[in-house]
């Protein structure tokens, strides 16, 4: 696990701490498939708008799924950098990285363009898959207000005024779609270590 810098003295630090505390208290992120359980099959549009099924990807080898908030989030940016580095070092074709982002309007294509290797980015329109996995949560008025006053309009980014975001989560699936490692952390500043995910799949990170 790696941790990006955060300054607890800032407003965001405080609001983030409050939010994380609230999410932990609510026990969010506990309904995800456990290690040894199958990830349910789903279909979502990719960065080109093509509907893709999870089975397509697991059919050709192990898959790492990462739920991201979007490139507006500095922690997601850091995670993208970490995965990009991991992909560059990995033998091509040993596993598929599948990013899932709920941001609409071409954000999936934008994220896909961040990688030097081809990476599929699925668009979880309206946070449906995140809800199914129990990863969606309501951001809460104080943080929404702060974001809006700083020009971050979640409604515009996600094409819905629901005020929802996913808990960033990472799953390593084997080729049968069985979860071999899961990193589900209500503190969105903490992300899975790519090497841990690959190790769980029997690949060297």
């Amino acid at each position: 696990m790696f941790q990006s810098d955060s300054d607890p003295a800032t407003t965001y630090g405080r609001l983030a701490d409050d939010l994380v505390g609230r999410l932990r208290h609510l026990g969010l992120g506990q309904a995800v498939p456990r290690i040894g359980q199958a990830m349910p099959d789903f279909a979502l549009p990719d960065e080109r708008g093509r509907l893709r099924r999870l089975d397509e990807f697991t059919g050709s080898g192990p898959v790492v799924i990462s739920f991201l908030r979007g490139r507006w989030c500095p922690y997601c940016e850091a995670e993208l950098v970490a995965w990009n580095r991991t992909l560059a070092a990995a033998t091509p074709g040993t596993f598929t990285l599948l990013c899932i982002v709920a941001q609409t309007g071409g954000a999936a294509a934008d994220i896909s363009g961040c990688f030097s290797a081809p990476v599929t980015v699925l668009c979880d329109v309206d946070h449906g898959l995140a809800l199914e996995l129990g990863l969606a949560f309501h951001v809460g008025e104080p943080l929404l207000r702060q974001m809006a006053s700083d020009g971050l309009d979640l409604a515009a980014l996600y094409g819905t005024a629901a005020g929802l975001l996913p808990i960033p989560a990472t799953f390593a699936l084997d080729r049968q779609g069985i979860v071999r490692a899961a990193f589900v952390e209500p503190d969105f500043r903490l992300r899975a270590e790519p090497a841990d995910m690959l190790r769980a799949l029997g690949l060297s990170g």
Partner: protein
Amino acid sequence: MEMHQVRYFIAAARLLNFTRAALECNVSQPALTKAILKLEEEFGGPLFRRERARTHLTELGKAMLPHLQRTFDAAQAARQLARDMERATVAPLSIGISRIVSDELFAPIFRDLQAALAGIELGVTAGGDRELVELAMAGSLDVIVLALPPDAPERFERWPLFADEFRIAVHAGHALVETQRLTPADLENEAWIDLAGDGCEALSRFAATAGAAIAVRHQAQHAGMVRQLVLGGLGCGWLPRRIIPPSLVAVPATVPGSGIEIVVASVAGRRRAVAADAFLRACRAHSWTDGENTAHIAAGYRTDATLRPSPDGPSA
């Protein structure tokens, strides 16, 4: 939040009765109540107000219901789509595309829809915005892509795709071709060609503020026919910048109030078929502004002020 909490909330919001909602969801009432309390904790306030025999949605409950319904539908669609893609069942889809939206933009979406749903049977209707709204309300169209008229019924769920702006389109030899500022005389001396079917409303309003009245003489149902009328010298076109046909020029002068927002919309509260859902989601995930599309427009459409001679337009 979790799927079952949202499911219970939606049932309780529809039935306004926890006992009946619990029965419908096949759970005990305490379990349903507990799940809703948990949801209320997450949203930071009560979703229901319970008074003696009656249960109401609070303002927060009312505000969150459409959002949670939409997210719930999305979750079901993600699952259902995976199943239907596997089965490749017959998937009929009727869509309406406004004539003020470029029909060039849809090929990648259609191609991919077909790849995903082998059983897709597509019906595409072109028309004016108001016409499409009526057809959708009547249930003849599943999804429409258009600029929703301001008086469109509230019942439309809409998702913005891209912004556009109506501009004056002329042939390369026209007197207005490099005009930066329009005078009342410019507006009155021309015959106008209406495409949207609203009598060039924004232009007419602008003319009125300048003390001029415009003559909308011609009407076309397709951007290609506007082009023919303009090249034939019958007048100036008034159409969104993104669909101004190659060989016509967008006049540099812009008109206040001529901006539009193209949305994908469908009637709320109706069960959407799997193909409609797939199309809607593909539209929303797609990038309508950058990459291929912009390159395509930049290559094919002359919307800049720098004039190049047009190969098939009248000579200047």
